[in-house]
């Protein structure tokens, strides 16, 4: 390099490459962050959709169980769970257990709805001495 060129640009040699590299890094970082945002957003949306589907399916199961007599709840629980699971494409599990508290007895119905591994919705229903209560 001649003396006069070094006088013209004494401190700027290679600065264009550095600036270009910085721009590329900034753009790549923004693109990467945006891709992750889009992915996580889509995953959260899908999870919320599954949660709503699970809630509706559990409410459907509770609605079906309301038409079952209290003394037949235990034996019809699996049948209702299977029926709702097939129609709603959600894994439904119905658990019934008798309870007695402060002189009040009844049946506690627990409906678990699991459309995927990360989403699980549980609803409870109680039958107290022949009357219905949710």
């Amino acid at each position, binding site marked *: 390099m001649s*003396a*006069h060129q070094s*006088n*013209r*640009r004494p401190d700027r040699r290679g600065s*264009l490459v550095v*600036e*270009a590299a910085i*721009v590329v890094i900034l*753009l790549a970082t*923004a*693109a990467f962050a*945006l891709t992750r*945002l*889009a992915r996580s*957003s889509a995953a959260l*949306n*899908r999870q*919320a*959709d*599954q949660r*709503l*589907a*699970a*809630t*509706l*399916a559990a*409410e*459907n199961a509770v*609605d*079906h169980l*309301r*038409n079952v007599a209290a003394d037949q709840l235990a034996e019809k629980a699996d049948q209702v769970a299977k029926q*709702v699971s097939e*129609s*709603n*494409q*959600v894994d439904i599990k119905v658990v019934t257990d008798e309870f007695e508290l402060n002189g009040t007895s009844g049946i506690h119905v627990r409906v678990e709805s699991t*459309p995927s591994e990360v989403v699980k919705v549980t609803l409870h229903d109680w039958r107290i001495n022949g009357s219905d209560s949710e």
Partner: protein
Amino acid sequence: MKCFRPGSVRYGLTLIEVLGTLAVLLVLAVSAVHILGYVTQIGVQNNDSWQDRNTVQRLAGIFRSDVRSAADVNNSDDGTWPLNLMFDEQSDQSDQEVLYDWDEKTLSLNRLVKQNNERLAFERFQFSNRFTPRLEVTDQMVTLIVKESTDTAPWRIEVSR
């Protein structure tokens, strides 16, 4: 051609430097606009989905209550809209009639309450995405299928009669 003497200081920018700087700024501006548009699009989609879920939850509660207390359910055999619910004198909505109808143009499910052919109330369940709710009515059950998707479970509202 103008020459610089050794030891002299050069002021200003060459045309190539100006053009290079403008090109870099242009690339940055275009990228920023694209990124901003993409982020806005994600936000709009999230908001639409959130509103749809809220609407379906609100609809589910009212629809279940209506069908449970209805004395008679009238619907065409092929399950098309509208759905007509009649109430008798013993229910809370005595002598009322509730009509659910899907409006394809506005993408909304409308609920109209009538008594003696007079409009008492009107409610609109607005959907933002391209849903096509459909009905399945049997003697034992009324089913409103709001959304059917291949990748997630359907949104079904089943009410026993």
